[in-house]
């Protein structure tokens, strides 16, 4: 019994270390100087930890003698992510609710059809998407990016919410009908509040996907409203120029900071939400 506990904690600690060490390595690298990186080992601790690289990353890439700072890009990202999140989760949860209803015919069929969307690499259909967005007059605007996120987030959010609403007791749905609440009012007053735990999960995951997106931001956003991942790419993605790994790492971590914070703060919500039925088949 005692041995088992010891082994259990050893395993957990090992796993935690394995999961954490890559991130710690990034952190330590971002605190080194370039010379240290060129000459030392990846696993050495920084001799004199310095946030110089972080400062440089925050200033952003200077191109053609112009520096534009990451701050603005963060704002752009937020301007993209928040409405995208709101819309794609709204659409996903409403769709999920409708598909969970037993009186909706072909619901399973439509659900399967939507699930296929989960498997389409968005790059593959980029051209028609551009044409569509252009036709809607949204190309080169934040609206275009948001639309793309809503489209490509649909399958995922629908999956989450449909599974949750399926687990709502049938009696509850009946009670709602007897009380005279139609689809929308039942959604708004009853189902939406009930699905809050799943919302948390959907928001967290969708936030991660949206925040980390590079392709849509690059393709559909206006020049001055591009998300922070584009700025990050400009910092780290240069192919033929010289590389500053410490800055790269700092910038990478800086960019990932919001999502990391979200996970740090909401791990409990996440598990509870999943337990609430977000992903029960």
């Amino acid at each position, binding site marked *: 019994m005692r041995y088992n506990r010891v082994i259990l904690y050893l395993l957990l600690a090992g796993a935690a270390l394995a999961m954490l060490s890559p991130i710690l390595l990034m952190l330590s690298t971002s605190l080194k100087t370039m010379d240290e990186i060129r000459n030392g080992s990846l696993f050495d601790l920084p001799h004199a930890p310095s946030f110089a690289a972080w400062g440089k990353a925050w200033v952003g890439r200077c191109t053609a003698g112009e520096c534009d700072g990451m701050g603005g890009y963060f704002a752009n990202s937020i301007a993209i992510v928040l409405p995208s999140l709101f819309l794609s989760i709204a659409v996903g949860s409403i769709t999920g609710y409708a598909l969970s209803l037993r009186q909706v015919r072909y619901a399973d069929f439509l659900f399967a059809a939507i699930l296929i969307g989960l498997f389409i690499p968005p790059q593959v259909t980029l051209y028609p998407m551009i044409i569509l967005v252009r036709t809607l007059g949204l190309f080169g605007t934040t609206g275009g990016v948001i639309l793309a996120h809503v489209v490509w987030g649909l399958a995922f959010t629908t999956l989450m919410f449909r599974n949750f609403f399926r687990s709502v*007791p049938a*009696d*509850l749905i*009946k*009670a*709602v*009908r*007897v*009380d*005279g*609440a139609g689809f929308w*009012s039942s959604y708004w*007053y*009853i189902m939406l*509040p*009930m699905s*809050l735990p799943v919302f948390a999960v959907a928001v967290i995951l969708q936030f991660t996907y949206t925040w980390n997106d590079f392709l849509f931001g690059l393709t559909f956003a206006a020049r001055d409203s591009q998300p922070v991942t584009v700025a990050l790419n400009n910092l780290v993605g240069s192919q033929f120029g010289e590389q500053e790994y410490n800055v790269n790492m700092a910038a990478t971590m800086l960019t990932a900071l919001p999502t990391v914070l979200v996970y740090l703060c909401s791990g409990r919500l996440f598990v509870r939400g999943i337990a609430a039925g977000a992903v029960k088949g």
Partner: protein
Amino acid sequence: MRGVHLNRVRKSYGSVTIIDQLDLAIEEGEFLVLLGPSGCGKSTLLNAIAGLEPLSGGSISIQGRDVTALEPDQRDIAMVFQSYALYPTLSVRRNIGFALKMRGTAKADIERKVGEVADLLQITHLLDRKPGQLSGGQQQRVAIGRALVREPSVFLFDEPLSNLDAKLRADMRIELKKLHERLGRTIIYVTHDQIEAMTMATRIVVMNQGRIQQCDRPEVVYGRPANRFVASFVGAPTMNFVEGRFGRAGDHLAVLTAEGVIPLPGLDVALGQAGQPVTLGFRPEHVALAEAEDVTTVTATPLMSEPTGPDMYVLMRFDPARTGVGVGPELTIRVPADAAIARHQPVPLRLDGRRISLFDPQTGQRMN
């Protein structure tokens, strides 16, 4: 044509017909209990009345209005579910007021009505809690409050008490009954617990396999079951059955079995032809221990006794040969808790012929 009228109601899922050609007239103010074994179609019927399941055929009218094509909320009904089906995220207050809000009732009116209902059900102090913070009985009351507040002309209950423990169930039973008396509205109540049915109903509908077996006052359903199904379904412990043929024992009609004669003193002698097969049914409490054997008694051996507190049920076996083990069919009788009954000591029993039931073994229909 007030009350609820079901007219040749049919309900099938795909090729499986659950309810077929069911007619039922429920008068206004009745407390009608639908009683039947699990899966017999009670909930299906209730859902059909509520409009939650579209009919496959037939029609339903409520208070003289044909509601067959109407949505549940337009049928002037309210429903209480077994699982309560309270809205978990709304406070009790909003749970109760939700239906009114959906109808666009003014805020102040909602507030007032919810208050009244809460008073009536004594849940005023719970109004601001969430359902999750309530005990089972309290949840049940809120569910009833949600139905009450709409002042419907018909209340539908689907096994509302089956999730409660025995004690609470007994209390709620009385409360529901008082409520019915106070409001005077029609109640249709589904249960598979026959105690509930017996104690509350003005009429009981016993269903089996989607068909009505009997529809009558509780005493009648209990005392004069229309067929063997009803007889065996209603009553706990269940009615005793003995297969045999009509015969005689002295002046009395009797049932002859392979093992011996069971006299039925008090029964109308003209009932059956001698030799005709018959199923005799009698309830545990309609058998008495006789002081001594005579032509009106039958001997049985006690096998096991179940004291329930006030009474004792004794499982026995007919034993005309007094072997102490018994050879005949088993039967259960009810005796006072302090009755002196010794295991394997045969005792004489006397059936109360006026209270027994006789069934046609072929059709199962009642004969007397």
